[in-house]
């Protein structure tokens, strides 16, 4: 019997090629989109879950309020982890990790400035349960000046040589001996390292007893039956015991008094698997993902699959008139309704299977391109992941049954007496259902499309917004701290070329994290202090970035005393609430022992967006380097013309000073775009998938239109015999369908308005909603729908009426 079903199904597919093609390709494209999105979602959800004890590993975070400013940090104090293990029941072990500096590492003639240089406790590999490829994971980091490197780093420095026992030299006036090689952390880790140096190399840092200075990422392992809550409940006691006395000593106020003034200080735990999507704290090791975007993608994936299933239903039902006689014959010959339902479900599952196979092939073909797009190397893992194949088979059945059940029940309910007499099945009472499904499809498509346009507009807005500085034609030479004190000579050398307009060196780069320091105004009460973003730069900063001054002046080369001066931005001037700030002095801790020093305010810069437009402009203070100061970034303003030549010249000068250290640079506008990577990715993914959604919905509309026309063949014939023109018929047929689109457009507007409002709240600076966006989306849907219907309506309107009438 099954064989008979399959034969009938296959011959039907072959006989009605167009229909089959539309049906299968629609479903295949839908499934492909679903799989591609779900691969991304799966990847985002998989972060750090590869640790065998992932459920027991937690990161300690620090939160609090001090002097009115709130902080929430991914880092914690040096002594915390060990104290927790000793004193809190259920805490098994802990390890600390710290990233500091970007050392220049040498081995033989190989020299690299290293970005992913971390130091870690020797317990690191035990906490994360990581086996070393070479070396002993228990002892590799116990001694000072030892380092464990990743296998890719080993290859980079040593090629095929055995790295064990090799010695690196560094610009930190230390040598490190390689005591272990570890597999590179997979991309789905919340942090990546190339080097793990033993924390014992820096004994002072490792043994730092201070509980109120937060510099370490601390990870602890809990016993399987110990809950996060149980451990967190112990934290206040620990803080009172250790941090309390230290705070009293440093600040001269008692812990209780401080708390009464509204201060807070505490620790929290984060499960390591939650960090990537749910942690957005200060000082994260790496930028994390965004759960909202993952949710949005997940919903889009589900919707696209639903769209494709609806299509399948509509198309199969549309085709039902052609199958009516078969149903009649089969029923007459003794088939029960159940058997027919089985038959049509089997057909649907077969189609679903073909579509899935096609989809998997498409996914495999598109994965390289798609991986580039999302910026992650994804793979389907058809055979390597034991869950994928069963999941796909379940999906095949599910999609087959969901999309096949309505047509199956519909077809099986045909009355054999009626269909065998050739009278087309009476107009289905369920036509509202099909119309409803099409409306639903278009609501989704139009909403997706509107959303894409809003994302697009917002991003263009950001890219074109006047940021208060000029980011074009600014080349950033990175890691200029590597050439250290020669920086001034380097700058002067660069300026010898007339093409180079300005050069400015600074410790931070616009758009990058800056330090936040508490500043007080001399002569004002201490509690009026403000957190100001601050960094050091030279005299040419305002010139290099074209930043305008609102008042006063910028640093000047002929005034050496300017290194005890400060320039603030307008927001800072307002927040300090001291009237005209020029001439007043800011106090901030300086040097090793943290003594307060006074800096005279000499200028106020016009506000510029030194961070991404996700946040409002914060108050800022810019200091001038002392005589020997230098920073990591050097901005070089160059002309539009002869970019390549100028770049070549800069590299030449760099080589002169940096010797064999690599020349690394970015352009300011590229660097700026990095701030919106997540948004840019969302834009690209949602553009592609909203186009796909509209395409799939159009296929559905095609199905519905053909269904309507099929049902009205006789009516069309009669009307033509009675003198209706092609235009009359065309209008008659298209109005029905277009009504649905109008309804869908109207319904989609409030939905897209509300969802996009929420998305835009992520940005401190937003575009205004324009009615144009909605009109364009609606119009587009309308035009696409019209085109879809037109093809069939014209065909029907032009058909020979005699044929239509003979059909009876």
């Amino acid at each position, binding site marked *: 019997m099954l064989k008979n079903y399959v034969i009938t199904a296959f011959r039907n597919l072959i006989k009605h090629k167009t229909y089959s093609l539309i049906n299968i390709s629609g479903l295949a494209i839908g499934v492909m989109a679903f799989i591609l999105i779900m691969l991304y979602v799966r990847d985002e959800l998989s972060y750090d879950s590869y640790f065998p004890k992932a459920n027991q590993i937690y990161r300690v975070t620090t939160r609090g309020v001090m002097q009115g400013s709130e902080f929430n940090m991914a880092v914690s104090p040096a002594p915390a982890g060990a104290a927790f293990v000793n004193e809190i029941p259920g805490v098994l072990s802990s390890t600390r990790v710290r990233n500091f500096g970007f050392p220049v590492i040498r081995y033989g003639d190989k020299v690299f400035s290293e970005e992913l240089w971390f130091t870690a406790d020797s317990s690191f590999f035990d906490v994360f349960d990581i086996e070393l490829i070479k070396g002993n994971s228990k002892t590799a980091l116990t001694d000072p000046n030892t380092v464990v490197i990743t296998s890719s780093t080993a290859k980079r420095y040593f090629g095929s040589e055995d790295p064990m026992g090799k010695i690196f030299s560094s610009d930190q006036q230390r040598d490190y001996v390689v005591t272990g090689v570890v597999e590179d952390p997979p991309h789905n880790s919340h942090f990546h390292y190339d080097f793990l140096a033993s924390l014992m190399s820096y004994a002072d840092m490792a043994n730092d007893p201070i509980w109120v200075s937060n510099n370490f990422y601390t990870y602890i392992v809990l016993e399987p039956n110990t809950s996060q809550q149980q451990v967190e409940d112990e934290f206040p006691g620990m803080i009172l015991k250790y941090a309390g006395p230290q705070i009293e000593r440093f600040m001269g106020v008692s812990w209780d008094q401080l708390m009464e003034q509204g201060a807070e200080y505490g620790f929290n735990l984060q499960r390591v698997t939650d960090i990537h999507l749910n942690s957005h704290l200060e000082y994260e090791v790496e930028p994390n993902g965004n759960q909202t975007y993952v949710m949005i993608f997940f919903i889009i994936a589900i919707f696209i699959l639903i769209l494709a299933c609806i299509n399948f239903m509509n198309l199969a039902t549309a085709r039902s008139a052609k199958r009516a006689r078969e149903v009649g014959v089969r029923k007459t010959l*003794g088939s029960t*309704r159940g058997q027919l339902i089985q038959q049509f479900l089997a057909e649907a599952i077969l189609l679903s299977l073909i579509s899935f196979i096609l989809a998997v092939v498409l996914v495999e073909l598109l994965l390289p391109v798609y991986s580039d797009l999302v910026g992650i190397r994804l793979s389907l893992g058809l055979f390597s992941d034991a869950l994928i194949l069963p999941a796909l088979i379940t999906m095949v059945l599910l999609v087959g049954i969901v999309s096949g059940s309505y047509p199956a029940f519909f077809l099986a309910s045909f009355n054999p007496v009626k269909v065998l007499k050739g009278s087309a099945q009476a107009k289905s009472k369920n036509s509202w259902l099909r119309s409803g499904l099409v409306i639903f499809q278009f609501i989704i498509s139009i909403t997706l499309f509107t959303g894409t346009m809003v994302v697009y507009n917002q991003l263009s807005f950001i890219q074109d917004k006047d940021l208060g500085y000029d980011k074009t034609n600014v080349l950033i030479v990175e890691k200029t701290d590597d050439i250290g004190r020669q920086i001034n000579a380097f700058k002067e050398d660069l300026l010898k070329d007339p093409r180079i307009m300005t050069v400015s060196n600074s410790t931070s780069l616009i758009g990058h994290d800056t330090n936040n320091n508490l500043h007080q105004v001399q002569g004002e009460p201490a509690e009026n202090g403000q957190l100001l973003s601050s960094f050091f730069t030279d005299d040419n900063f305002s010139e290099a970035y074209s930043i305008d001054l609102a008042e006063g002046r910028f640093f000047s080369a002929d005034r050496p005393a300017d290194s005890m001066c400060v320039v603030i931005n307008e927001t800072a001037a307002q927040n300090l609430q001291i009237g005209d700030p020029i001439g007043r002095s800011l106090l901030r801790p300086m040097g090793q022992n943290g003594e307060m020093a006074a800096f005279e305010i000499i200028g106020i810069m016009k506000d510029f967006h030194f961070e991404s437009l996700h946040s409002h402009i914060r108050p800022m203070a810019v200091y001038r380097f002392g005589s020997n100061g230098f920073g990591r970034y050097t901005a070089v303003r160059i002309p539009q013309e002869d970019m390549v030549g100028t770049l070549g010249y800069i590299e030449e000068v760099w080589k002169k000073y940096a010797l064999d250290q690599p020349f690394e640079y970015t352009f300011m506008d590229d660097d700026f775009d990095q701030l919106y990577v997540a948004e840019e990715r969302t834009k690209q993914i949602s553009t592609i998938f909203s186009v796909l959604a509209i395409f799939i919905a159009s296929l559905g509309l095609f199905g519905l239109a053909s269904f309507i026309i099929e049902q009205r063949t006789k009516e069309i014939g009669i009307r033509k015999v009675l003198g209706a023109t092609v235009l009359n018929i065309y209008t008659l047929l298209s109005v029905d369908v277009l009504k649905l689109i109008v309804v869908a457009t109207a319904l989609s507007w409030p939905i897209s308005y509300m969802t996009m409002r929420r998305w835009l709240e992520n940005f401190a600076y937003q575009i205004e909603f324009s009615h144009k966006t909605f009109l364009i989306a609606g119009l587009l849907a309308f035009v696409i729908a019209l085109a879809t219907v037109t093809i069939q309506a014209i065909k029907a309107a032009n058909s020979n009426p005699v044929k239509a009438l003979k059909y009876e």
Partner: protein
Amino acid sequence: MIKTNNLVKIFTTEEVETTALNKVNLEINKGEFVSIMGPSGCGKSTMLNILGLLDNPTGGEYFFMDHEVSKYSERQRANLRKENIGFVFQSFNLIDELTVFENVELPLLYLGINAADRKKKVNTVIEKMGIAHRGRHFPQQLSGGQQQRVAVSRALVSDPKIILADEPTGNLDSSHGDEVMKLMTELNAEGATIVMVTHSPAYADFAHRSIHLFDGQVVTENVNGKFHV
């Protein structure tokens, strides 16, 4: 074999009630060849659909092989139908996607007969009908007369107790029509009970008995050329 008592069929639409059969009493015995005649809309096809267990009457009783079936559910009727009744239609009603062999095989599939037996039965019947050489062809590749032979083969393959034919010659030219009627007569001679709806008085004469319907009622019965009022 077939007996009806005051069989009534009323079609109800939103506004109108149409009485298609009005208290029809009819008896058909095993081995008989009966034709049903009458003008368009007199209820012939309705009668045949009810006799063929495709439809239930609105009122009256219907005994099919001594079972009172007028209140049977669709499932019960389907079971009785597939074992006992063979259908031949004016428009053949072959499934275009199946070959001649597969079309004829279909009733056996629904009877749950195993593959070897199916093959044997189908081959026997298409041999007998003279279409064995066409087994692998699709219906569209055959002439009208050949298609009707396939339909008749399909009706016969399950050895039904009764064959119901709804204007089997309606779509055929006269030579093919004659051929089908000859086939019917032969089948009847071999013992099959046949009920045939037809427009053609000439073909009606092939039957033992003709029943004339008019406005849903039996008006005359003609046995071997003699009229009974």
